[in-house]
């Protein structure tokens, strides 16, 4: 190993260590923000800033869940379809409760939210149980779930948006401003903060890191690895469902393809750019939140500069590889497995 690291010029190693991803993201964010004053002043319009904030909220919540699964050494490819399932189920339940059963819109909303969170928990439970008890790698389990859940969602709707959501849920929440900021931003801040607290201050958070860092050691020291792994997958799916609910409340209908693959890929990108290790054991909610802000700002800036969504994919891909390459080169010797 020492032979390999000796081949590398020391300067590059030191530079990339200095710049490490943690330092690079805020820098790039500032660069984009400054750059946009020159190229596109519309970037600073309040509607656009709110737009960025909303997209950041959606992404940050989902990416925090993705991060938790990555910390225990897994991967969740099914977050996008889980969000879509939550969206469709919430819309169906709300529409049925108000139109068919004639319930009060408030009751219908609570019912819809609870049922759709329940559906998310069920998906998470399935992912967790399959990857622990059946010992299938989570990449394959969630690949299977991706297919199964999108099949279910499409069967429920035939791909047609589900209307009939109470107006209170849309205008009073999804599109509403609370104390001058979009409502989803408060939800995201609360949830990212909660995950941060959990990671920092609770035994649960410590256990999750311990399992990711060294599952055998965690098991030997008496942590119920299986239970916590399952719990992590449930957390991830629940957070994905919240993202689905927030997007539904903004769009005003239940959508089978609201997140699609794009949201899933972005959630992985946000987690990875935020310094979460794919080998497990490393990842911080606040950094993932920050990289969600970075990615949302970047895609927004690209849109305003009329770089179409196809070319945007190319930029996103290059950014992800560059960010992770700088990170792993910075860690130098430790990176050879």
């Amino acid at each position, binding site marked *: 190993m020492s032979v390999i690291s000796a081949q590398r010029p020391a300067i590059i190693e030191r530079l990339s260590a200095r710049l490490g991803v943690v330092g690079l993201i805020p820098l790039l964010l500032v660069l984009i923000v400054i750059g946009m004053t020159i190229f596109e002043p519309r970037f600073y319009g309040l509607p656009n800033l709110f737009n960025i904030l909303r997209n950041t909220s959606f992404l940050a919540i989902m990416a925090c869940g993705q991060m938790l699964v990555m910390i*225990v050494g897994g991967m969740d490819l099914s977050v996008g379809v889980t969000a879509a399932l939550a969206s469709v189920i919430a819309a169906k339940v709300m529409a049925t409760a108000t139109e068919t059963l004639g319930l009060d819109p408030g009751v219908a909303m609570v019912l819809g939210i609870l049922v759709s969170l329940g559906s998310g928990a069920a998906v998470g439970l399935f992912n967790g149980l399959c990857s622990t008890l059946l010992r299938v790698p989570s990449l394959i389990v969630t690949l299977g779930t991706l297919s199964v859940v999108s099949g279910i969602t499409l069967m429920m709707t035939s791909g047609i948006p589900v209307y009939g959501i109470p107006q209170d849920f849309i205008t009073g929440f999804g599109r509403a401003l609370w104390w001058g900021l979009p409502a989803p931003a408060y939800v995201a801040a609360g949830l990212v903060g909660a995950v941060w607290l959990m990671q920092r201050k609770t035994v649960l958070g410590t256990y999750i890191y311990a399992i*990711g860092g060294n599952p055998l050691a965690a098991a030997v020291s008496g942590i*119920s690895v299986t239970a916590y792994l399952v719990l992590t997958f449930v957390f991830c799916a629940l957070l994905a469902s919240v993202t689905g609910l927030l997007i539904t409340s903004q769009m005003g209908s239940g959508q089978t393809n609201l997140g699609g693959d794009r949201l899933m890929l972005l959630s992985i990108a946000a987690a990875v750019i935020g310094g979460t290790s794919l080998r497990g054991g490393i990842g911080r909610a606040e950094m993932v939140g920050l990289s969600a802000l970075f990615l949302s700002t970047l895609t927004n800036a690209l849109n305003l500069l009329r770089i179409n969504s196809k070319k945007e994919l190319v930029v996103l891909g290059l950014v992800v590889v560059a960010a992770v390459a700088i990170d792993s080169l910075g860690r130098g010797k430790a990176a050879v497995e």
Partner: protein
Amino acid sequence: MSQAAEIQPSAADLATGRSDALARIVSLAYRVLLPSLPIILALGFGLYVPRVLSLENIVNIIQQASFLFVLTAAQTIVLLTRGLDLSLGPSVSMISVGSALVMTAILGPNAANGIVAALAGTAVGLALGLLVGLFNGIAVAWLRVNPFVTTLASMNICLGIGTSLSDGHPVFGIPDEFNVPGYRLHVLGMPVSIIYAIGVGVALHVLLQHTVVGRSFYVLGSNPRAAVVAGWPRRRLLALAYILSALLTAVGAIILTARAASGEPNLGGGLSLQTIAAAVIGGVSLSGGRGGLSSAVIGTFFITILSNGMNLASIGGYTQMLVMGAIVILAVALDRMGRVNA
């Protein structure tokens, strides 16, 4: 990720304290069953829909399988090194559109020099494949970016380029000099794509079993430290695996383009995940070092027969997605149970 995939099960073992006897029975059953699984599946469908077992449909299945096989072979090479290639599908699309555009440009309005166009299109397709392989290989081997992240990124890049090249429209007007040898030709009564698949299969087997480079891919996957300690050019070998895989992907893309007789920006679609599923069902391990020609063949036929059978049984597309997902999980679960003490 791959490391955890290896460790997680043993941690789960400790936690649940499962017995070995069951695992051994499952293991034995699965070892015997695996090779015959596609045949059992075909017979099972045949009971309900006799048409599945008609000669015409069997030829159809083999032809369908030949496309998927070439791409699964490409995926297998990378999986052996404990990597994976998510960019496979979108790079198929990009290569298809790229080579079609070159062919139509050379062909011009009077369609005179078809042979030149076909050769140039093939060359450009292979060159694009080489580029994808170089990108993935350099990022994984020298920049030390995790294969999942690398190919997730190159997947987006290929997707972006593939759809921008022709604005997302199919490219028509590919010369017959390309389509006929690529797809429509029959040799000894067999569709030519089957011949290509057999050629790829032989090449894959020779590479993996009889060359030093091929054998080293197994070591890179099962014990990367050993490769370092032995003083091998670990990085060059790893990059080579991605390059060979991408070139094979290009071959698959060229055949598929000839079949479609147009450059299709959506040609690759779900192929990345389908090839991973096929390889893993066939017995390739995501933690590297296990698999080969037979696993690619078994997995390819399993997936092809399953989707062909469900189509003929007129099972709806949405139900098919559900069944396919559940079966992938189940097949891998059985495989892993069977391998506990192997």
